[in-house]
């Protein structure tokens, strides 16, 4: 009998043959990986042939739902897109929130996996009648939001659409998949979809699934909803994630001009506090969310722009741009093209430094030049001019340009760094170095330790390693249940409370200890996938700039992250994870993964 909240099966679509089959997902497997990022990792192991190219037809692209999707639990309308990243060559899971999650699950599947490539631009339709392909020639070149609108007009009521923009169609290695104005943003999964000539996936609900204990779920939902209005989420409700900007600037954790500084003189103009005071602002919520972190500001020309911290960091301070209208325009352009703002901004900032050093011939590309950022984005989206190089991301671009530019190519495993300065957040430095997805702030929330007051954020040590493990474990569970991480502050005993939610939905008798084991299994499964696909010990490392150039914080203290210190923290992390000195697991850990 399938547990509550699950259908116990995945739909596996062969896009080349236009056929589909069902993959049973036994109860034990679901309990071991839950859903979302966890289940998606298992599916990649199972359905991806070893050594496959991320843009090859055989590459699986998995849309993975979770047991909590469709319940009244706040922030639970989320899904994970899981594939091998064309940017990193490693496992990538990108999460997003929208009605797509609910409708996708209610097609009657816990996951929809696409393999193979269509012969022409297509849209995949999945509903109660099964899966089928439809022509999408008329959608070519459209922004994802426009393609979504046209498809919904064409298909009629009840359909929900995830689509790619022009960047995904052209194989930009950090292209996104979008829906409801939200994005599965990191790692280039839009390029994976584009390589399959899939412009969109459309889903329509056709089935029902009930939780094991509806009353318990309802009571938990009421309780969680009430807590979601408390102080733990005030920042997100009142100003959104952009509230980070001024605070990060004050404590020298705001990466600026390609990580050449950690404070930005233009930060006050870009701050949420400033925008909220000077512009019209409306709040919006993802489906099934009571927090409502999304803030949409009025922009130049009567336009409106959704603003997040990472967008503003990457297209503002990282590129030296202080004009808020320019940053909002660049963010909007990324949405239209279907580009991950972090990787786009990071790659452009790297190119700006290359241009300043005379390593690339682009005299128009200078830090602080907002028009140059827009031109670079357009060229990336079109893969024209300099965009052909920059569409590859900083790692590949720096390998091609040479001249020592790899030293200031700010990526880990090929994924560009988010807006958290590792030298002044040294638990985060470790989290960025060892995480399976690469330099990522959502799979490793180790910055929580840096801001906890319990660790010296400027002097990483063994306590930081333990904290990085803990936050990574928490993320693994939240990304698999799935619950939004902006809710994390409301849980006082997170693993136990999450186990109670999961048990109410599924009928299992899970407890906090079991979920801790599950978290470790998921983290390990990601690492093992990467090992299978060519991960090397040196991939768990940070760019040279971060390990050789000190930073001064406002108090006058100098923050220095040395290779030796990072090595000690990594060794501590490996030991805590039960890995050997080169980051490889033992037999017992492998046996626990249920991969054979």
């Amino acid at each position, binding site marked *: 009998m399938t547990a509550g909240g699950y259908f116990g099966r995945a739909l596996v679509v062969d896009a080349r043959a236009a056929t589909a089959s069902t993959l049973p997902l036994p109860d034990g497997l679901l309990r071991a990986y839950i859903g979302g990022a966890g289940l998606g990792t298992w599916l990649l192991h199972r359905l991806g042939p070893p050594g496959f190219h991320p843009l090859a037809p055989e590459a699986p692209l998995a849309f993975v739902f979770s047991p909590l999707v469709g319940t009244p639990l706040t922030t639970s309308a989320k899904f994970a897109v899981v594939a091998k990243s064309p940017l990193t060559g490693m496992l990538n899971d990108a999460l997003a929130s929208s009605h797509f999650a609910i409708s996708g699950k209610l097609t009657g599947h816990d996951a929809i996996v696409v393999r193979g490539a269509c012969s022409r631009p297509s849209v995949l339709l999945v509903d109660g009648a099964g899966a089928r392909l439809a022509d999408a020639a008329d959608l070519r070149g459209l922004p994802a939001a426009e393609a979504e609108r046209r498809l919904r007009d064409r298909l009629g009521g009840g359909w929900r659409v995830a689509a790619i923009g022009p960047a995904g169609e052209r194989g930009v290695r950090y292209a996104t998949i979008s829906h409801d104005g939200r994005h599965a943003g990191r790692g280039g999964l839009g390029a994976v979809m584009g390589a399959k000539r899939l412009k969109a996936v459309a889903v329509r609900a056709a089935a029902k699934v009930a939780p094991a204990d509806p009353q318990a779920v309802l009571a938990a939902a009421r309780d969680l909803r009430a807590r979601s209005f408390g*102080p*733990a989420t*005030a*920042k*997100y*409700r*009142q*100003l959104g*994630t952009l*509230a*980070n900007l*001024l*605070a*990060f600037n*004050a*404590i*020298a954790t705001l990466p600026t001009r390609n990580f050449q500084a950690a404070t930005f003189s233009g930060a006050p103009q870009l701050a*949420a*506090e400033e925008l909220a*005071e000077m512009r019209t602002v409306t709040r919006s919520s993802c489906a099934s969310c009571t927090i409502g972190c999304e803030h949409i500001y009025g922009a130049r020309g009567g336009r409106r722009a959704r603003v*997040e*911290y*990472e967008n503003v*960091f990457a297209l503002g301070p990282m590129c030296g741009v202080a004009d808020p209208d320019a940053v909002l325009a660049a963010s909007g352009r990324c949405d239209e093209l279907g580009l991950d703002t972090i990787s786009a901004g990071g790659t452009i900032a790297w190119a700006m430094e290359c241009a300043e050093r005379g390593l690339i011939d682009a005299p128009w590309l200078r830090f602080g030049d907002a028009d140059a950022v827009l031109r670079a984005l357009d060229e990336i989206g079109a893969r024209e001019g300099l965009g052909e190089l920059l569409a590859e991301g900083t790692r590949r671009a720096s390998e091609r340009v040479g001249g020592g530019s790899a030293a200031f190519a700010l990526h880990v495993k090929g994924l560009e760094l*988010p*807006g*958290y300065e590792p030298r002044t957040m040294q638990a985060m430095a470790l989290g960025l170095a060892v995480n399976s997805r690469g330099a990522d*702030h959502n799979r490793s*929330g180790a*910055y*929580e330790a*840096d*801001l*906890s*007051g319990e660790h*010296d*954020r*400027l002097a990483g040590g063994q306590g930081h390693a333990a904290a990085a493990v803990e936050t990574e474990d928490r993320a693994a569970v939240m990304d698999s249940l799935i619950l939004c*991480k*902006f809710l*994390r*502050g409301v849980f006082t005993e997170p693993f136990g409370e999450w186990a109670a939610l999961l048990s109410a939905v599924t009928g299992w008798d899970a407890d906090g200890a079991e979920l801790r084991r599950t978290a470790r299994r998921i983290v390990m499964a990601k690492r093992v996938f990467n090992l299978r696909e060519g991960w090397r010990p040196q991939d768990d490392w940070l760019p040279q700039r971060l390990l050789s150039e000190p930073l001064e*914080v*406002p*108090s006058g*203290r100098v923050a220095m992250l040395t290779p030796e210190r990072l090595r000690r923290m990594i060794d501590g992390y490996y030991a805590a994870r039960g890995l050997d000195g080169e980051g490889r697991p033992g037999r017992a850990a492998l046996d626990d993964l249920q991969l054979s």
Partner: protein
Amino acid sequence: MSSSAGIVLAGGRSSRMGTPKAALEWHGSTLLRRTAGILSRVADGPVVVVRAPGQALPELPPQVEIVDDPREGLGPVQGLAAGLAAVASRADIAFVCSTDLPFLHPAFIRRVLRAGAEGADVGLPVARGHPQPLAAAYATALAPAAARLVAEGRLRPAFLFGECTVARLDEATLRGDPVLAALDPDLDSVLNVNEPADYQAARARPAPEVTIQRFGALADGHRGPLPARAATVAGAAAAAGVDLGAHVVAALNGDQITRDGQVPLAAGDTVFFLAADAGG
């Protein structure tokens, strides 16, 4: 090895005060908590409190180490020997002070410690008319010499100074440090409280002038710096109407993050309050 440590000699008898000075309250904290906290803000190595055997101490932060002075009543050189020995393997130099310095400023400590970096074994301030051996910097390598002097019954700091290089830091020299001159122009750092009248005078002085900055939702429409008087982070939080704790942290001068309301503040400090959740 870390370069600097902090040592608070808390084992005196407080006979003139009539009550243990370590536990005396000053603007929301105890003198010992404040002194140890000020040292912690500067030292990049251990901070230890040397106490008399069995001496009760007020609450201290967990990172502060407590060392029992093996013999009571032998004076500061005995405490100095015990304190330096406790940190010698982890620091090259230590700022050593008594517990009763409510106006001790981090800038003063930094300036005095610099004497060690300039080659002296002891950085000895001479301020407000007196040498200040209990607000001075000592090379930790002096621990054996201090212990030997105690064993020989030579219990005055002057005997130690006779055996090492001493940089005497007069007031002009101290004020030559522009940061110290700006933040502690009268060198109140060396003002100690020995008698009830001293203590009452110290209590009558206001808490240090600091600047508060709130970010994000905490600003609540009050952007920009807020001048206030507060001797602790908790005092600053109260002045700003901020609920320091699970969801709010403080960053002192843009440096370390803390949820500890007892972290002491000094004149010129800026306290940032920000959301503990930095999700982006």
